[in-house]
């Protein structure tokens, strides 16, 4: 018998956001507003919750805003799909979601500029439990620590 999952009582709920008004209801996406912090620099961003993405992806310009120097990031990555044509390197960033404690996220910092900031399996979905209520155009986010309490 499967263990009963606990409800996400401490979760914060967010609305789906329309990325293209011409698409009507089909244009809504689960974008999570959050803050990225590196050293003394913080950047407010919107991350696309993408359960199919293996990794988090940081667009080039946001990495630059956070003060990362491309040449100093020595761990190179090979990404897949449309991102395969761009170089990518590993960066570690503190992330603050809502009122929750900061967590460390690992990103594939890509040289692509027209890509959304993607929150994927490694390691956003390892740090946060997320429940999608697409029919209500909402999703709920809860850090793993409070979910297991």
């Amino acid at each position, binding site marked *: 018998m499967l263990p009963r999952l606990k409800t996400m009582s401490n979760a914060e709920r967010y609305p789906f956001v329309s990325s293209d008004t011409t698409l009507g209801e089909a244009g809504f996406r689960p974008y999570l507003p959050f803050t990225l912090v590196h050293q003394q620099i913080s950047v407010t961003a919107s991350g696309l919750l993408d359960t199919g*993405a*293996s990794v988090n992806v940081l667009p080039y310009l946001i990495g630059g805003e956070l003060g990362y120097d491309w040449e100093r990031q020595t*761990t190179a990555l090979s990404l*897949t*799909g*449309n*991102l395969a044509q761009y170089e990518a390197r590993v960066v570690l960033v503190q992330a603050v979601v809502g009122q929750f404690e900061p967590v*460390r996220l690992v990103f594939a910092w890509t040289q692509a500029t027209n890509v959304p900031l993607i929150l994927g399996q490694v390691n956003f979905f390892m740090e946060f439990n997320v429940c999608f209520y697409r029919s209500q155009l909402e999703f709920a986010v809860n850090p793993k620590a409070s979910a297991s309490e």
Partner: protein
Amino acid sequence: MVSAELISTLRDLNRADKFYIMQFLISELAQQETDLVKSGLSYPVWSPYDATEAADTMLKVLHAAKTQDHE
């Protein structure tokens, strides 16, 4: 814009015609959804699916950083 005249006309329809109108509208809506994706255009998919090597490398960097924090 839906006019009062149209509503009145719809209200006067018999039961079978009302069902027909309902099916017609549902079919129209479904067709519009299909039309959102235009043939001949390319739509980039940015998701790094199955990027298992990258995921493994990133987890190793993350674990190394955590280990360093505890030292």
